């Protein structure tokens, strides 16, 4: 099962088990969305549950929020995360705050699916990784699965959750496959996962970064370097306890993600570790994200600005060389 298929399976299963789960999005019906995630669901569930929206992102999320206040559980597809910029009021001012602002009277069981990341050469308006924005907003939960198994589990958990969940999907992962996870490793919101256990350094990552870390592990093993990989899975709230445990073992950290480094998710992880993990640190905390520039259209320039396993290996070695 691919990552995209896993999300579809989770949507289908959730829709079967709860008829208040509805899908909303642009071209999610006949077309199945730009990455085919919802294909077939219109046929299976009909147009009262798979709602093909006009190109109106603000109304898309705003009405999903209104429907959520009234007991529905909308799963919204925002084609590209960049387009969430057109719906930030609904996400941030309305949905994120409703439970609090209304004193707990209403909950907002809504999932906002959005594809982030580059590498498909669509230029600067179709490649952004803006998860740090959402993580900054109290009331929102932010997840980002790195493989098919987690994609399924996290989507089920996100739909179950009574809060608005920003569900970040990585474009380069849609076609990747993974084996189902055993029960104890099933993804839950707020819980990270040790992807690879190691002793020399902890690599904290999520989304596409997990594969870069795995590739790095293989390369570094040749040099006798033994890395521990943590997949955060959930970005808000992230699994601080797990990361601290790892730090206590390895004493060294590299944080890696596809988003621009500055003011990105890695900043929060690093900042927390520099506080509550300070005494366990034996080396500078290094972050590896995209350069501080928009995604270039030219593939070569785009890829130069993005992290990859080579850069990650270099960062890891640099941190290890700190004495």
């Amino acid at each position: 099962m691919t990552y995209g298929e896993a999300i579809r399976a989770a949507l289908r299963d959730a829709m079967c088990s709860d008829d208040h789960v509805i899908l909303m999005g642009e071209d999610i019906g006949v077309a199945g969305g730009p990455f085919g995630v919802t294909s077939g669901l219109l046929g299976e569930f009909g147009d009262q549950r798979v709602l093909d929206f006009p190109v109106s992102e603000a109304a898309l999320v705003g009405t999903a929020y209104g429907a959520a206040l009234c007991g529905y559980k909308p799963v919204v597809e925002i084609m590209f995360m960049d387009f969430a910029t057109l719906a930030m009021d609904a996400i941030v001012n309305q949905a994120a705050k409703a439970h609090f602002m209304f004193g707990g009277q209403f909950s907002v069981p809504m999932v906002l699916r959005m594809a982030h990341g580059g590498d498909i050469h669509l230029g600067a308006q179709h490649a952004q990784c803006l998860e740090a924005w959402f993580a900054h907003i109290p009331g929102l939960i932010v997840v980002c699965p790195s493989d098919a198994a987690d994609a399924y589990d996290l989507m089920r958990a996100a739909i179950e959750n009574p809060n608005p969940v920003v569900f970040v999907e990585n474009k380069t992962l849609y076609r990747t496959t993974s084996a189902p996870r055993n029960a104890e490793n099933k993804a839950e919101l707020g819980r990270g996962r040790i992807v690879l256990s190691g002793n020399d350094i902890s690599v904290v990552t999520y989304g596409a970064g997990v594969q870069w870390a795995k590739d790095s592990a293989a390369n570094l093993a040749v040099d006798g370097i033994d890395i521990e990989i943590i997949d955060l899975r959930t970005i808000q709230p992230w699994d601080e306890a797990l990361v601290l445990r790892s730090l206590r073992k390895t004493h060294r950290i590299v944080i890696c993600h596809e988003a621009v480094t500055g003011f990105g998710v890695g900043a929060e992880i690093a900042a927390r570790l520099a506080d509550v993990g300070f005494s366990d640190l034996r080396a500078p905390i290094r972050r590896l994200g995209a350069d501080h520039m928009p995604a270039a259209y030219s593939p070569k320039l785009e890829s130069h600005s993005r992290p990859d396993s080579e850069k990650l290996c270099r960062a890891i070695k640099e941190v290890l060389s700190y004495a």
Partner: protein
Amino acid sequence: MSEITELLQMYRAMCRIRKVEERLSALHKAGDIPGFIHSSMGQESVAVGISRYLTVRDTIAVTHRGHAQSIAKGLALSALFAELMGREAGTCRGLGGSMHIADSSIGLLGANGIVGGSLPIAAGSALAHKLDGAGNLAVAYFGDGALAEGIFHECINLCALWSLPCLFLCENNGWSEFSPSDEQFSGDLKKFAAAFNVAYHFTEGLDVSAVTQMAEHIIDAIRTTSKPQVFEVSVERFHGHYEGDAQAYRDPVELAAARARDPIAHLREHLLAFGIAASILAQIDVELTVEIEIAVNVARASPVLSTNDAFAMVYAS
């Protein structure tokens, strides 16, 4: 129910709102209410007229100027006062305030601090009503200022496209903060609605009976057809944009004329002319005063939510 009984009911409902607003105004001046409040004085006929035909299952999404809209839908006064005083007994436990009044038990989906914010909420709720198939409807209250927001366009389009039972209720008071509407919106709302094949109705808010009659007709039609409709009511904004706004930017003569277009005074005269004794109206006044003072006292007696409880409210569990 006889017409006169109905009129008296509406009179009472409007006076109740007016007196609440007056009390709020005094409390605000006295420093008992923090922040801004936006008074609906002068606009009471709208919510009163509409709410008569709404059931508790029907939903409303309201504006920053939402007291009348909320009270007419059934918001308990003590919960309103407590909320605006920031107390735990508030309908939002003091976390929302005037701009975020909500009450799930009466289908009040929240006031909004964002101009146009009510529109997609009501549209989404109308979608829910349609999917539920129980014949309920949603009302999107909005001001003339929101006509310029793109979300209005998006919501009208969607509701028309999908036949969602949504009433777009424009309370046109001629002002968007400190700017006159005609410097803000160049469209003609009637023609705009027609462009989406959405029925449009207009009435002056001065006469609550006219609002009420139109409301009945419109709400019936929405329930039957499940199609959106637009209802524009012209009203006057007596107290300026917010409490404390001296409206120095308005021509005093024009402002006085506006204040003379008072739906409550209008109905009062009608009732008196009809032969209702002034003492009956005075009695209503007394009853309302008592009700309001009790509510204010309940509110005052309420503590502020604890910090821990507030913090626990950020996420639902």
